[in-house]
């Protein structure tokens, strides 16, 4: 069957856009190999000193560990809340579902800077009560990240629930299964892929989060993006280029693995 394919003009325009999309990602590679202390193109000599700085400078290591810790805690928290909420929506289809889901999705649609000032208000208010859990503490950041990631987790879990056949749940119910049994033994095993994706996406979003983090941290809870931001604003530190190259390589590898998995599954 013939299909309608893009012509030569479309292909040239698309290639230009593709070039534009990849160019800044490629540009960081030569910068990361510069032997100088400032941001510049290497002239002749190449050096790995900025990669070494990432391993040797405790600031980078500490912020990476902090980002991982915050990512795990906030992702676990937001995935569990999103899972319970979505199960409630799917199993009971309560009235006002649309309004309730809309409310849950708010942090995703409200401009991030407004969420940031909102969470700044929240954490500074908590700081008045507890110094352990509020502005510029890692638990405060984890909670703020959970607020920001929970809509995404909810969307992913609701989407995978919408593809589930209701009849298997009805059968379990007819055979006398309790709500708990239906949820844990019938529904959750069937959407485990969606749950894992939600947890991973929440972790990645927390790992990258900068807009809100900037408003709610100052000197103690320095996550990796926060440290990169500090290095970008003042004197640009070429270690950021080395870090960027590593992050880009990880992204490319993960995406390649993902499409390989999809292709293998498609073949079966």
């Amino acid at each position, binding site marked *: 069957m*013939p299909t*309608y*394919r*893009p012509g030569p*003009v*479309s*292909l040239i325009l*698309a290639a230009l*856009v*593709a070039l534009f*999309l*990849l*160019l*800044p*990602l490629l*540009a*960081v590679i030569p910068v990361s190999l510069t032997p100088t202390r400032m*941001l510049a*193109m290497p002239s002749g000599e190449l050096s790995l000193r900025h990669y070494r700085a990432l391993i040797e400078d405790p600031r980078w290591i500490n912020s990476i560990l902090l980002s991982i810790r915050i990512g795990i805690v906030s992702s676990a928290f937001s995935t569990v*809340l*999103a899972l*319970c*909420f979505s*199960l409630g*929506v799917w199993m*009971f289809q*309560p009235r006002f579902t649309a309004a*309730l889901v809309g*409310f*849950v999705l708010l*942090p995703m*649609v*409200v*401009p*991030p*800077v407004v969420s940031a*000032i*909102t969470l700044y*208000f*929240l954490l500074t*208010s908590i700081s008045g009560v507890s110094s352990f859990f509020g502005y510029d503490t890692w638990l405060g950041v984890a909670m703020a990240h*959970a*607020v920001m990631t*929970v809509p995404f987790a909810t969307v992913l879990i609701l989407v995978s629930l919408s593809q589930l056949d209701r009849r298997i749940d009805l059968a379990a119910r007819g055979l006398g299964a309790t*709500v708990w049994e239906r949820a844990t033994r019938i529904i959750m095993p069937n959407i485990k892929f969606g749950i894992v994706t939600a947890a991973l996406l929440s972790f*990645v979003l927390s790992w*990258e989060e*900068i807009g809100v983090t*900037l*408003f709610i941290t100052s000197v103690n809870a320095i996550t990796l*993006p926060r440290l*990169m*931001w500090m290095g*970008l604003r003042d004197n640009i530190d070429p270690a950021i*280029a080395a870090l960027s190259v590593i*992050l*880009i390589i990880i*992204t490319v590898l993960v*995406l390649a693995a993902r*499409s390989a998995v999809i292709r293998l599954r498609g073949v079966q």
Partner: protein
Amino acid sequence: MKAYLSDRMGAALLMAPLLLFLAAAYAWPFFGVVNWSFTLPEPGLGQYGTLLSDPLVQSVFIRTLRIAAIVTIVSVAAAYAITVVWVRGTPAQRVVAEFCILVPFWISVLTRAFGWVALLSNRGLFNTWLQAIGFISEPLTLVRNEFGVIVGMTHFLIPFAVFPLASSMRSLDDRVLLAARGLGSSRMRTFWSVFVPMTRSGIIGSALIVFVFSLGFFVTPAILGGGRSVMVAELIYLRIFQSPDWGLGAAISVVLVLFVGALMALLFRYVRPKQLI
């Protein structure tokens, strides 16, 4: 009746934790911010009066709208070009297009903004190269101005513009296009008078998403604008942390939310939410 009641209990128990969490950690502090806008530094509508009269605030709003409009037009056009190939190309072309869309999409906003700094700054790749071939003698100023902000934001938003376009192009019936070609219409004409009109809902959806995103954009303008091309989100940041005027920062946030809310209402009149994924 008993089963009905226990159903309602079950739903409430499962849904309550998230709803309570967001009510306490998001809705309540948001009203706190609204309250700031009416009470700081003194009770009244003073901050909203400042919003209407202060030339600095107004110039920031106008700049934000101008940059958002330019970025919207450029990103939707660029996204359209690459989406055509991603959805309609040969299998090999699709793989390449998907790679070029998804890799930047998953890379953090900071890395991408930094990539543009590395490319466009005075000692960056672009200026170094232009000077090496003798095309220019002094480096061109390409970042820390509005140009850099527009380039960086367009780069960030193209992947977001792609998804609604792709969904409208996928649902399009091939036979209509083949019929147009079969009836003797040129490639150009088929594209402009058949293909583009049939993806109208995708274009509107993608333009509104990009526009809404650009209005509240913070990181890219702050890095690539270098403080010289301040947009609304950065102004809020400055009013909270640098020359504190929390009331004004809060009032700007409230206006931004109302404006974005109105735009979203418009979006859902034209496009169903499902078409956006």
